[in-house]
């Protein structure tokens, strides 16, 4: 299905076209993992909204990506509970092991890393999302073996 058609499927949920903008941005982002100029234009066209409006909304939210991302997106929480249980060491490890900096992408395009604000798993800290997979209770050994599963 073309993304325009998929976006139109959301229109009935909202009283006006603009209501469907957040879901539309998710749809547009799904294929490439980020919102390119073409993706934003496709949303603008599907919802008949000005391009500036679409970009203005997209840039407000942390989960709409403004740059190309690696094949797999690691979202690691370093908020208070995760910090107490060693999330900072995990950030260092990703740097040492994969050359991956917060906000960056590995040279081979395999991973991008984003530091997220509270993943809501403080009872199983530290935790991360890899794409949409949730991984709690991380240790240095565990994070390495988990990431081996993502090519």
């Amino acid at each position: 299905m073309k993304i325009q058609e998929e976006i139109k499927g959301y229109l009935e949920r909202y009283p006006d076209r603009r209501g469907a903008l957040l879901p539309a941005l998710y749809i547009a982002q799904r294929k490439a993992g980020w919102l390119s100029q073409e993706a934003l234009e496709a949303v603008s066209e599907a919802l008949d909204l000005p391009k500036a409006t679409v970009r203005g909304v997209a840039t407000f939210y942390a989960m709409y990506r403004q740059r190309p991302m690696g094949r797999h997106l690691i979202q690691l929480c370093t908020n208070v509970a995760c910090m107490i249980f060693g999330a900072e060491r995990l950030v260092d490890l990703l740097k040492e092991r994969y050359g991956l900096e917060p906000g960056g992408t590995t040279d081979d395009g395999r991973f991008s890393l984003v530091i997220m604000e509270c993943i809501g798993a403080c009872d199983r800290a530290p935790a991360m999302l890899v794409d949409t997979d949730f991984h709690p209770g991380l240790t240095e050994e565990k994070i390495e073996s988990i990431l081996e599963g993502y090519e």
Partner: protein
Amino acid sequence: MKTVHATELMEKVLLKNIESPNSTHIEEYRRVGGYRAIEKALRMPPQQIIAEVKSSGLRGRGGAGFPTGMKWDFASRDPKFPKFLICNADEGEPGTFKDRPILERNPHLLIEGMVISAHALRSERGYIYLRGEYPYAKVVLEKAIEEAYEAGFLGERILGGDFGFHLSVHQGAGAYICGEETALIESIEGKRGQPRIKPPFPVNVGAWGMPTVVNNVETLANIPFIVEIGGEEYSRIGNPDCPGPKLFSVSCCVERPGVYELPMGTPLKEIIYDHAGGIKGGGRLKAVIPGGISTPVLTPEKIDCPMDFVSLPKYGSMLGSGAVMVFDERVCMVKVCWRAMRFFEHESCGKCTPCREGTGWLRNILERMETGNGWKGDLELLRDIASSMAGKTFCPLGDGAAGVVLAFIKDFSEEFEYHIENKRCMVTG
């Protein structure tokens, strides 16, 4: 022998049956009595449901503790239609993960609560505003909504009557501010999530300018139970000033972190030591944040405090979301305060200058203290900036950020001063 507390005998309402491997399926939910309250509720006139919720004394579980029945009454009395019902599932307050078990393990309880609430409000359109950080909950909720449509609990002519209600998940995209109800409404309308000035309140001018009720997940999950047992009976659970079962998410330095369903008013000490198993590794308690990162920190001598909306202010804090963050002596308070401020700086929406600039300044000063570069006079500077932010913003984010700093430097000033004078941490060296 282990002491048995009255609270342990209470049957679970919100987390009922969530240990069952099939807890998310409609058949399993119905097997344990689910969707019975809806049949009773649809036979009641809307006003009677609102009256029951009023007499139950239920107060909103999102943090502010506003009386739910009163909120519904305001929206119900507004002559404008359509009315919208929005479930706030944007659980983003650090330390908070109490709604997660409902969203991921008991989705039909939330749906049943929403359909009953919608009937009471005569709303035909609802949304669950779900945070983007919970992708698994989205899958569970969408499946449950589909099941509820098939079973006739959602859609047109619910249970063959005149009432119809449509529900869908609206996924947030990583903005903490959207937990604030007016920012949430902006976000549902497809806009940047920046708060609106109040009044007008959403109950009169909400989504698309229409009367809108925004209720927290846990609040809505209480509704079927209130309909089942009646408001009077419900009002006798826990503290009479703010009754009912309450979810507490307990984390950081405790033996058994997790979500606990206990009567409102359960003492903080009992939550930490009896339910969560005490301090991890037998350490010494240093500080507790009782209601999520935005609520002022408490010192150990205050843990006798009953955990409810009316008691915590007397101890200088707030119930907030009921997210209990426990710190032992090995945790550096300067570092916790710095990390909290990094969060507020990141999440400030940028609309109000005191919050946008102030959170950045506070983070900057805390960061130099934390890294051993603090200046003499930094504590006064923190106090001065925080005091200048409080009360000068559209929404409570700025107040929360200011209050966090003020509470930390009031009760743990020694630690902050040590960082400045000795250029290193008092705890970790």
